């Protein structure tokens, strides 16, 4: 049974707005009444993925499905794809440009943080076509 679904369009050209979708979902999950720890894990993972979309893929679309058991999120972009997922999953590995680093991101912690805070994570990527990242956080 689904409690709610949400769709967020993430603009790719404005880094200052990155995180708006994550903030919005966080407030919705609070209203539904999930445990604060679950909400924080979802928020952090979604925020990192949203930032990634803006940095690497010129934005994209986020779909969220909320049920009493779990929160599923799909991040779909039409970016350049990830050539080596194992390398991208390593802490400290980053291909982010310098201007992003000066804003406090690009430490190579994004994907490792997403994995750390979620119960399921799956990356489907194709070079030149785009990337879909799926995550799930269990509510129990």
């Amino acid at each position, binding site marked *: 049974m689904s409690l709610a679904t949400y769709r967020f369009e993430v603009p790719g050209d404005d880094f*200052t707005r*990155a995180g708006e979708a994550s*903030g919005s979902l966080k407030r919705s999950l609070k209203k539904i009444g999930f445990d*604060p720890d679950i909400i924080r894990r979802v928020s952090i993972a979604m925020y990192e993925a949203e930032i990634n979309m803006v940095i690497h893929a010129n934005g994209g679309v986020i779909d969220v499905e909320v049920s009493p058991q779990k929160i599923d999120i799909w991040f779909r972009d039409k970016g350049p794809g990830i050539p080596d997922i194992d390398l991208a999953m390593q802490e400290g590995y980053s291909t982010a440009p310098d201007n992003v680093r000066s*804003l*406090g991101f690009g430490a*190579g*912690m994004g994907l490792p943080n997403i994995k750390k805070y979620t119960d399921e994570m799956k990356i489907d990527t194709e070079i030149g076509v785009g990337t879909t990242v799926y995550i799930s956080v269990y509510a129990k």
Partner: protein
Amino acid sequence: MKIREIVDILEAEIICGEEHLDNELHSACGADMMSDVLAFVKDQSVLLTGLINPQVVRTADMMDMRCIVFVRGKCPDEQVVELAQERGIVLMKSPLRMFVACGKLYEKGLRGGC
């Protein structure tokens, strides 16, 4: 430690959130890399940073951090202040440098989270 004690210890000036100064904080995190902050989970923390862009406030919000201290006297623009007000986060600026600011809070008993 109450937020108002942090204001005194760090010789700080409050930018917004005066109504929350009696809230208690139990740990602190000093960082300019927001992904490092996101790797650190602890309730009721204060974030010390030298960055003043909106992502600092968004990061604190995701982490349920209730207070941000901008070190070296830096002050964010109006857009960042408005975002913090919306989210109920206290902003303050301290003339101290990062190392000294963190050291002073540690000396007074505040610790890093796990």
